């Protein structure tokens, strides 16, 4: 099972993403954006990692979404292969229309607005550990394939534009009905709140990750690759010093999900 980690100019999380994917038993390589796009069909799955592709010119993800490599990915997605977009990768997937995958561009990841008690308390970039609550049943989505509804997964986030918004009034209802909302920000006990600091960036319904209707394409703002080893955890987590340097962290389950999805689907 071989995956490609796509590298755009300005991507900055590709190495640790590949390491995390390999820790789950996937094999893979980095794939530079200007390689012949047809080479992509040789891979079983794809990860678009975090960073600042094309300097976030215009909007985060906007330029990368127009690259030929994204057309090739769209074709692979139609064949049912899994694609996971992390942070800037999520932004690229929404700009390309692959997410939420309803035709056209339906959502945007806008600038963070931290709201508490009705007031804006902060804006801009924010880096912190967060907890995600799985909102979909197991097997619904490639990147949460082995996670059950209600499962909590902690990982860091680090972005300035992760505030999911839409101009389509009916979209939220549809995403909820179709089980396309995969992760929500919650507190350590699993309680979702609409306000900062639990809803860390102001996202509608505290959304942290969504999938397409078919479930093979997932985008999420937080970084599972930064939580794939136990030693990466915060010191208040007792699992931090357990096991050796290869001991898993919670984020690895995203990559393990992808692996399981590929095993089952092919």
């Amino acid at each position, binding site marked *: 099972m071989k995956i490609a980690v796509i590298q755009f*100019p300005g991507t900055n999380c590709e190495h640790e993403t590949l*390491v995390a994917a390999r820790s789950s038993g996937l094999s893979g390589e980095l794939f530079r954006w200007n390689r012949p796009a047809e080479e992509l069909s040789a891979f079983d799955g794809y990860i678009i990692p975090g*960073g600042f592709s094309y*300097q976030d010119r215009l909007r985060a993800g906007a330029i990368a979404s127009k690259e030929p490599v994204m057309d090739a990915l769209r074709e692979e997605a139609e064949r049912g292969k899994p694609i996971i977009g992390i942070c800037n990768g999520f932004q690229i997937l929404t700009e390309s229309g692959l997410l939420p995958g309803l035709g056209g561009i339906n959502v945007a990841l806008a600038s963070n607005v931290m709201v508490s008690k009705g007031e804006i308390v902060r804006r801009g*970039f*924010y*880096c912190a550990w967060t907890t995600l609550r799985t909102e979909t049943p197991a097997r619904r989505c490639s990147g949460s394939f082995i996670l059950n509804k209600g499962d909590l997964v902690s990982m860091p986030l680090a972005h300035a534009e992760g505030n999911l918004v839409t101009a389509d009034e009916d979209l939220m209802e549809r995403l909820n009905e179709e089980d396309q909302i995969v992760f929500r920000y919650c507190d350590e006990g699993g309680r979702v709140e609409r306000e900062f600091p639990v809803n860390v960036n102001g996202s509608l319904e505290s959304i942290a990750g969504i999938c397409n209707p078919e479930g093979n394409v997932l985008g999420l703002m937080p970084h599972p690759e*930064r939580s794939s080893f136990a030693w990466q955890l915060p010191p208040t987590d007792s699992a931090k010093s357990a096991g050796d*340097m290869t001991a898993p962290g919670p984020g690895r389950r995203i990559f393990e999900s992808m692996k399981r999805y590929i095993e089952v689907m092919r």
Partner: protein
Amino acid sequence: MRIIGLKDHEVDAALRSAGLGLSVSEARSIAESLGRDPTIPELFSYDTMWSEHCSYKSSRATLNEFLHTEGPNVVQGPEEDAGIVAIDDEWCVVIAHESHNHPSQILPNEGAATGIGGIVRDVNCMGAKVVATADPLRFGDPYGKDKNHVRWVAEGVVDGIWQYGNALGVPIIAGDVVFDDSFDSNCLVNVVAVGVVKRGEIIKSRAPAGAGEKGYDVIVVGKPTDSSGFGGVTFASEELREEDEEANRGAIQIPDPFLKNVLFKANEALFQLTRQEGIVIGFKDLGGGGFTCASSEMGASAGYGMDLDLDLLHKASEDLPPEVVACAETQERFMLICPPELTPRALKIYNEDWDLPNVYEGARASVVGKVTTDGRYVTRYRGEVTCNVSIQHLTGGIRYDREERPRVVELEEPEISAPEDLTEILLKILGSPNVSSREHIYRYYDTEVQGNTVIRPGEADAGLIAPVRDEKFGIALSVDSNPFYGRISPYWAGATAVAEAMRNVAAVGAYPATLTDCLNFGNPEKPEAFWEFRECVRGLADAAKALWLKGYEETPVPIVSGNVSFYNESPDGAVDPSPIIACVGLIDDVRDAVTMELKRAGDSVYLIGPRFDELGGSEYYRTVHGVTGKNVPIVRFELERNMIYAVIDSIAKKLVISAHDISNGGLGATAAEMALAGRSDLGLELDLDAAGSDLPADRLVFSESSGFLLECREGGEEELEELLKGYGLDIMKIGIVSSSPELVMTCKGRTVLLMDLSTAKKGWTAGLSEAMR
């Protein structure tokens, strides 16, 4: 430009009208060496290379006199762009440390961003992967007469740091921020970058052996040269005057982390290629002094000359005069010297594989000339020779013997009667701009990118990363300097900065492996400022020498990199002496490292380090009583060494599970921070009588004498006490971790402090955001 035969005032007028910083005597010595009048581009090249920033003309003698730059673990001392020490037989850590003070005062965002941009290039060009940065920042008084401007600078600097560092993809794992009115019109923005490289894969920033004889190519890589940053090093070597602000803006470089990110990847591809083929290259960043500085130093340090054609250099526009092309400090550029047979493949990596021309308008790699054997530094432009000088004379710089005179300051200790209750005082200190939680700032920083982070800002006294996958070792990083101590005693400011930076890495369990010093002072032409500089260097060198490299007796912790920043002075006066120290600590296994937050109710807490009447420059004196005082904390070298080693050993033996050093705000702030850093459901009960001191309670709690608070693993008390005794340390079992969220201190049977942690947390977390709002 005519110099020979003109009178001094005529030469001076000509230099100033050309925008040169050279003195008349410097210009005359250049003409004398050439045996003719120099050209304008030649004068600008000398102006750059002989600036204080590039030549260390005032500081070199002092640095050579005091600093220990060698040691058993040193792989590369301060001669190159970055210093290198060994981690083990295979891996090395690379570190560089610089200031970007003046640019950040004028244009905070761009100034701070280009500061990071420059320092990461210094580390990358050694062949290293850049794995961490740290940012020591000094701003003016956020509640003082210039508060609006101070806050504008502070906000802009923090924005510049995150916008650059986060996009580049290097985690910011350490730093500090101090507000002090001496920085009202001259902030300090220091930057530290750390990298890792295998010992056999270090690349030197000089022309390789044989480069002259075989006519190696000189290649410039990156952004097209423009006029930005022209005069930058000269600007850094003058006092700041408000009337010059408009003119100085042009001397500030323009940052581009996006292009840097792509360049780093292309550089890595180049490095891999040269390793595979066993080809030795020279590689250097274009930083202060631009093209002239990089090319002349690369040639001169190998004993060669250079013949360079500025027409071949890719430029943003074709109408730039030769001195601008040569000396502008356009960011995101590197210089490569390689054998001609490598050139086509090197160009392909940059211009095709990583597609620089399409990624960034005008960016590319261009061959600009050859290394020669004649020892001349020659540049050509539009068919004319624009510069033809001795490369050694150009890069050799000049030396000044500056006069020093002790600064006389009237200092006295205040008379304070000890208050009955210390709770309100501690709350005030915890909410003060300099002690409150740094969270408001570090949440802007990507502390996690690269996925190597083990300990983050706010979790311990130092940040810690595991920078190489499949290896267990960790690199800890901390920075320190207290300007208020510098105000009282430059010598002890230097010594305490070294000691605290070392304590910080020791507090996570790492041993101090190397230090860097970024020395920020006023105008060295003023004898008092030069004296402060020398005193600080003497103090920090004494501390590095006396605190020993662990495992080697009588061997100083080496100082492998650093920077001197003079002229941090405006008409309002000079900054408080600020020898900012960074310490790299190493730990064999990152899973043995500890953090500062309290772990378990019932655990014993030990105080390390007796309390002395040392409150000069303390938070207590300044924040609560509005005075500076006189009795600055000093470093008792043997005691300090024993404390640091004892803490490292006790963490390695898993006897200590939380540690925090005592510094600003004293024992009181340290205890509160240990309780506030975690989930805040644990508290502390401390019995001050255990400190064995007859100081009044307020002095005991707020003295900033060095030390630690340690939480002992359950059942490990006896073994810990044995270990501490072995180092000759007093046993001061000062209290226990409690299960109620409050901090309680008793003294002589009386409760002197009872602080609710949730109340404390509000002030502690709000203090910094209020100061920066």
